[in-house]
Structure formats: C-alpha cells, structure tokens
C-alpha cells in the first residue's frame, strides 16, 4: 500500500471499504490508457472499419486530398454511388472532369451540406448532377449511418434542430467523434472474433478496405457493389412505382438548388430507372407525370436556371440488383448512357469553355 493511502469505511456502508488516495492515480492512468488505445485504433481503422463507414471515410479523405475535384459533380444516394461510373463520361470530356460524390444513405440534406463544403473549400463544381428519384428526407437520416457517426460537423448536425426535441442525441454525436472504439464498436467486435477464429490479426477487412480505396480513386468516386441479377423471368409481385415527396425533402432540395444558384452552379436532374416490375401508372397521378411535373415546378420557381432532366431508359430485369440498385450490367448501361447524354450536354452548355450559366437568383 502506498504511503499516501489508508483504508476507510467511516463514510460508507458496513459492507464497503476503500483505499483513499489524495490523487486519483488509477483514474488518471485509465484516461491516459484510453487515449492511447483510441489513438491507436484511430490510426489503424483500415484494419476493422465496416464497409459502409470506410466508404464515407475514403470519400472524405479523397475530397480533402483533391482527388475528387471535378467540374461536374454527381450527388446522390447508393443508387448513383454504385450505379454511375464517371469513367466513360470522362473519356469523352477532355476539357474537364466528372466525379461521383454520391454515397450510401446520403440524403438531400447531406448532399446540400456537401455542396456547401465544396464551395467553401474553393472547389465548387460547375455542374451538379442530382439524383432525382424522390424528394424525401427522413428524420432518422440525421441520426444514422456514417453521417451521424463521423461525417457531419457540429454546424451540419445542428441544422437538424434536434436539440429542441432530443438534446441527448448530442451525446451519441460527441461519443462517436471522441472515441473511435465507440464509432467502430460493431466492426471491432467482428474483427476481434474473426481474429480469434484465425488465431491472428484478421486481414480480409483491411484488404477489402484497401481495394475500395483503390477503386474509388480509379473510378472518380464510384465503387461497385452489386452482382448481375439472375436472367430468370421475374415471378414476384408487380407493384406501382411511387413518386414520394415530403416537406423536409422539399426544404433541403430547395436549399441545394439555392446554394447552386447563388454560386452559378448548373443543375442536371438524373431520374434513375426502376426494374420492370415497378410499374409506372399512366396518367397525371403516375410516377413519370409527377416527376416531370415536379421538375417543371422547380424550373418555374427559378426560371433563370437551366435545369435539365435526364432519364436513362431501356433497362431490363437483369440490370437491377434490387428495387432501386443497378447490377453490373445496369451500371455499365447507365454509365454509357450518361456519357452520351453528357457529351451532348457539355456541347450545349459549352462546358470547359464558358461554364457559367446565365445569372440566377435564389429560389423563394
């Protein structure tokens, strides 16, 4: 027992005795050890980081390095992230570069914030290609996935105004930023048990994460994900394709368009295809009519912005991996169609020479 210590039970119950120390050495050592562990984990997260998180991390790192600077930036969710390879478009666009900034689970508010970040960093694109499949922002999208775990800055996150309704969410937000072990807890859990099974540090996660980084770098931000679907005839249920809009989605789409307009960034809306079993109902209430009407509404609200709508067509069942995501063949098809459309678009808008569109005003 250290000379500064004594045992006391005077203030405690009869079942309890403690060693009293003037300085809480164990607590200090605990904090130091935790800091060391966290630093080590943070520096070696490639070993265990889950794929969803690693893709966001890699995209951020490549953005910071300037490896994803481009004149044309694609914004969207996993549909475009995995489904649109900018490489074919870049082959025919020698005067600039198309980059894919989309990510899994990246909703409209995240996209708007990313666009603002690019502008603030002095790396604004001349054209923003925006996924146009629905206009939805779910409440939970503020509190889930890599966005909540590490992507959002405090000002980004405060834009959710969550603190008026659920202040303790700030705790989870802070914990994820302070402690890599907390941020990657499930991934570390998996890695530890994988390592125990293989009697050594499991390396397959690291190999996968490295491959992701290489692919993202080589394909200007795109990472492949899905295999080709079976060619067998689909015998599942047919269901209508639904056009969905909610107030939060509209609020953040407006934010995106306003930011783009304020910085003279041209907008192109990309209406992604759907598998044939999602049937588009004809008539004014059908998906296509509502999508077109919504695009027209956007144009009406800001008549000076030349907002184009691009809708790739001719996709079969084999081009889809599920209800929304494209398979390998679907990705190749859409990337080729996008390259063709973009060649025409860049010629019409003289991209690479005088990129800026006519003066625009922010939407109300």
């Amino acid at each position, binding site marked *: 027992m250290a000379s500064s210590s004594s045992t006391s039970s005077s*203030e*405690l119950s009869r079942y309890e005795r*403690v060693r009293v120390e003037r300085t809480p*050495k164990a607590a200090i050592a605990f904090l130091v050890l935790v800091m060391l562990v966290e630093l080590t984990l943070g520096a070696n997260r490639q070993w265990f980081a889950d794929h969803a998180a690693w893709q966001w991390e890699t995209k951020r790192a490549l953005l910071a390095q300037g490896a994803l600077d481009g004149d044309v930036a694609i914004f969207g969710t996993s549909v475009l992230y995995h489904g649109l390879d900018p490489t074919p478009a870049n082959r025919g666009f020698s005067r600039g570069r198309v980059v894919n900034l989309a990510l899994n689970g990246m909703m409209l508010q995240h996209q708007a914030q990313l666009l603002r970040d690019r502008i603030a960093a002095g790396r604004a694109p001349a054209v923003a290609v925006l996924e146009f499949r629905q206009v939805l922002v779910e*409440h939970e999208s503020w509190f889930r996935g890599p966005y909540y775990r590490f992507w959002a800055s405090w000002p980004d996150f405060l834009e959710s105004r969550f603190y008026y309704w659920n*202040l303790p969410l700030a705790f989870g937000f802070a914990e994820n930023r302070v402690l890599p072990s907390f941020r990657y807890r499930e991934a570390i859990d998996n890695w530890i048990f994988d390592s125990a099974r293989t009697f050594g540090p499991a390396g397959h996660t690291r190999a996968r994460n490295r491959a992701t980084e290489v692919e993202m770098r080589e394909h200007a931000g795109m990472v492949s994900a899905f295999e080709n679907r079976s060619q067998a005839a689909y015998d599942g249920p047919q269901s209508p394709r639904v056009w969905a809009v909610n107030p939060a989605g509209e609020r953040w789409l407006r934010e995106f368009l306003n930011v783009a307009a304020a910085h003279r960034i041209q907008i192109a809306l990309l209406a992604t295809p759907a598998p044939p079993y999602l049937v588009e109902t004809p008539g004014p209430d059908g998906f296509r009519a509502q999508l077109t009407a919504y695009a027209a509404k956007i144009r009406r609200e800001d008549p000076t912005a030349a907002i184009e709508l691009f809708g790739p067509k001719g996709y079969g069942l084999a081009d889809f991996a599920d209800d929304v995501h494209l398979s390998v063949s679907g990705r190749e098809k859409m990337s080729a169609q996008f390259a063709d459309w973009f060649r025409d678009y860049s010629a019409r808008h003289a991209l690479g020479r005088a990129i800026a569109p006519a003066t625009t005003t922010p939407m109300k």
Partner: protein
Amino acid sequence: MNFNSGAYAVLLATVLVLYYGLREKRRQNLMMLAAGLFFYGSWDHRFLFLLMYSSSVDYIGGLGIVHRRPSRYNGVIFVAGMLAGTFLLCAPIDWSAAWTALLPARAFAGGWTEPVPWRGFFEPAGAWRICGAAFAALGVLSLTTVIGYQLPDDKQPKYFLCVSMVVNMILLGFFKYFDFFTASAASGLAALGIHVQPWLLGVAVPAGISFYTFQAMSYTIDVYRGQLEPTDYYPDYLLFVSFFPHLVAGPIQQATWLLPQLQRARTFDWIRFQSGVFLIGWGLFKKIFIADNLERFVKTTYAVGAHPTGPEVLFATYAFALQIYSDFSAYSDIARGTSRLLGIEITVNFNIPYVATNPGEFWRRWHISLSSWLRDYLYIPLGGNRGTRGLLYRNLLLTMILGGMWHGARMNFLLWGCYQGALLCGYQLLQPYIDRVTPKGVTLPRVAHFASWALFFHLVCYGWLLFRAESGVQIAGMTAALFTGWRHVADHAGLLAHVAWFGWPLILMQYFQVKTKNLLVALTWSWPVRAAVYVTLFYLMVVFGAVDGVQFIYFQF
C-alpha cells in the same frame, strides 16, 4: 429517462453543477426536488399527481399522528403547491402546442417536423373529468384532515395512520391490481359456469408506484411508532419520496434513514465521491455489458410459442439469473453512486446474493431494501418467529406472497412469492436436522458446502423460471422440458458459452468481493491494477455492450 441514457447523463451533470453551486441545503433540496419531479415526469407527467397526492396524504398523516399542524408558512406552501400542481398536471392542457408555440421558427428549420397549430391553451376535446376527480380527491383529503383534527387526542394517531395506509393501498391497488383481480374474478366465475365480462381499466401502471408507496408508508408507520419526528416542511417530505436516484426502482429507503440526511447540511466527501463514481461505472457495466446482452438469449428461449429443450431452459435460466441480478443491482449501484455524488447515502440493496446456501441467507442478500421493509412492517407485526411453528409458517408465507405480488399483478409473481415462502418454510422445517448434522461453530467440509450452494442456487434458478415465464402454461411446459433433450446437450454449448462470456467479469468480481467481504474490493487494489481493470471493463462495455438503452427490468414494478 433511463439511467443508461444520454438524457440521464445530461440531468446528472446539470444537477451536480447546480448542487455544488448552490451550497445552501434548502436550495439544494429544492433543486433536487425539481430534478426528481422532472425525472419522474419524463415518463408521463400525469402520474406526478399520484406521487404528489400520495406524499401529501403521508405528510398530513405524519403531522396528524403527533397532533401537529403545519406552520402557517408551510401550510400556505403546501396548499398552493397542491392546487397549482393538481391543475397543471391534471387539466387537459395542450402541452405540445404550448411547447411548439414557445419555440422559435428555426426549431422547425430541419424540415422534419411541422409546428403543431395553436389550438388554445387547453386541448379542444380535453377531458376535464380527470381534473375534476383530482380536485375531488383533494377535497376528500381536506375533509379527512379536518375530521382527523376534530377527533380526541388519543384517537388521532391511529386515525391518521389508517388514512395514510388506506389511501396508499387504494392507489397501489387501483393502478396495479384492479385489472388483475377483476380478470381473475371473472375467470373464477367462468370456472363455475357464470360468464361475466370483466371490467378492465387498461390504465398503464405508474412507474415505480410500488417503490414510492412502500417508502411513503414507512414514513407514517415510523412516525406512529415514535421512531421518527415528522417533517413540517412539505418540500422536504416530497423530496424524500421523489429523490430521483432511487425514485423509480429503489432501493426503498426507510424514512428514518433517508429523511434526516435530506434535512441536514451535506459536505463534499472525497471517499464517497470516488466510490460513487465507481458504483455508477460498475452499474453501467453490469447493465450494458452483462444484463442487456444476456437479455437476447433469455428472450429467445422464453418467447411465447418457443419449445426449448432441457439444456436450453436451464442455460437460459442461468442467463436470466445473471441478467436480473446484473440489471437490478446495476440500477441500485447507479442510484447509490448518484446519491453519493450528492453526499447522500442510500442503503446497500444487494450483497452477493448468489453465494447464499439457504433461503434465509438469500433474502438477507437479495433486494435487501424490500426484504427489510417486509420484515419490519409486515413479518414482525404479524408476529415474526414468535409463537407456534404454524404461525411462523403462516407469517413467512404471507410475507413472501405479498413480496411476490409487490412485483406486479401477474399469476407468476404470486406463484414465485408462494415458492419463496415455501422455500423459507421448508428450510425452517429442516433447520433442526441441519443443526444436528452441523452444530454451530463447525465448518462444513468444502464439498458439502459446495453441494448445498449448488442445490440452493438451482432452487433459486427455478424460482427465476417462475418469475420470468409469461404464463402458467409456459411454466408447466418449461418445467416438463427440463427433463428432455439432455442427450444433445452439446448442441447447446454455445448458449452456455455466451452466458459464460457475458458473466465472467461479474463472477470474477464477486469472487474477490466474497474473499474480502468487501463490496468495494476493486477500490482497494493498487492503482495499476485498478487502471487495467477500468480499461478492460470500459472496452468490454464500449465494444461489446448493448448500447440501445434497454429499460431496467424493475422499472415495471
């Protein structure tokens, strides 16, 4: 608001800052009272009225028992507080509209929520009946008080004690047991061929009602017995009932223990503070790493419609034994730790119960605050172990049945209480033979000690099966299943491995606690060992813990 939630961390941090900033005892108490009411109101603010009403009855009762009335100042505070509280809590005020009306427009700028349109201060179709009933209940309280003070001096104490007991029992019975008894009566009549539709209230059981009702009753009983001077200042009494660390799931504090601590000035104590932080950390670990992880396995085996084999029932029951202990003792530890940070001592609720080798010892170690309450306010008044053996068995059975029913209005709690009573009676029955084999002062051989421990541990586990099961049919099915499927026991080794994986830190800690007879043994280790233990527990919790904020089991009681 769970102890294992960010909201509680915010509340605790706020309370600590204010507490040590305020310094003066009365201000500290008012702040803690506000924190307690907020903490309780975070579940459902309407149930705060019950808490206030129950405590007002006991406050008046306490004074009435000793022929005193509140001073004019305290009386005004009491009456004004009750009237305002009743109106605010029971009137159909549209709080959500009021709240959103207070918020600035930017609160809605996230886009995911729309302001609730202002429809007036009161809900348009609000029910005023509840408010009327609440004020009527206040009227009844006033009337009974006036009647009590008109009685001759020698009759006043008993009258006020009875009023307090009756009101508390009515509240508890109405909210917790009404549906159970009406449904049971209906099924009893149905068995006799008389079919009646039971009249069920379908009211949610107010959180912690069993805890605070028992605690409130202890106050009037102690005052009646002359063991405690009643408090004249209502906020102090309300704080005693609503002291937030132990409000919802105990430990149940007897008034003679807690109230004097609340009424005197507290000073910062470094030993207490350190041990408080440790208790909170250890409690969180037990909850997040052990209890909530084991819950998954228990839930699967005890799911309605599941047909587990013997090994699955046994291993899942081991898991539940660890889960309920970790969960409940975690709550008690966090409550005690929080309380220590505020300079207030709450009694120990668990003292390594699974080392017990007989039922008497188990109940001296398990849920000590409830078993002490039952002993002091029920078992001993019933006659305790005085009188014939028949009376002793009756007292034991009655006490344990009430202890079982205290947990809730379900047949399996009743059965569990009977089972525990039967174990105690059985042990009393065997005691002379046991004493003959092992006279006092003779230590049992290790093998015999282990055998008696193992036997009793499995008896306790069977009790947990009764406690956890969803129905009598399931109890019968699982009991029968215990004797099946043992040929394929190896197939279920994974379940046992999971129980061992999540249980080992607890078992190891208890080993040292038993060895040293010190619940805070970890705080006697050298600092490098402690630091290593803290880091290990911290990372087990962070990486492997179930961080979904699962509610504590005893919240439902």
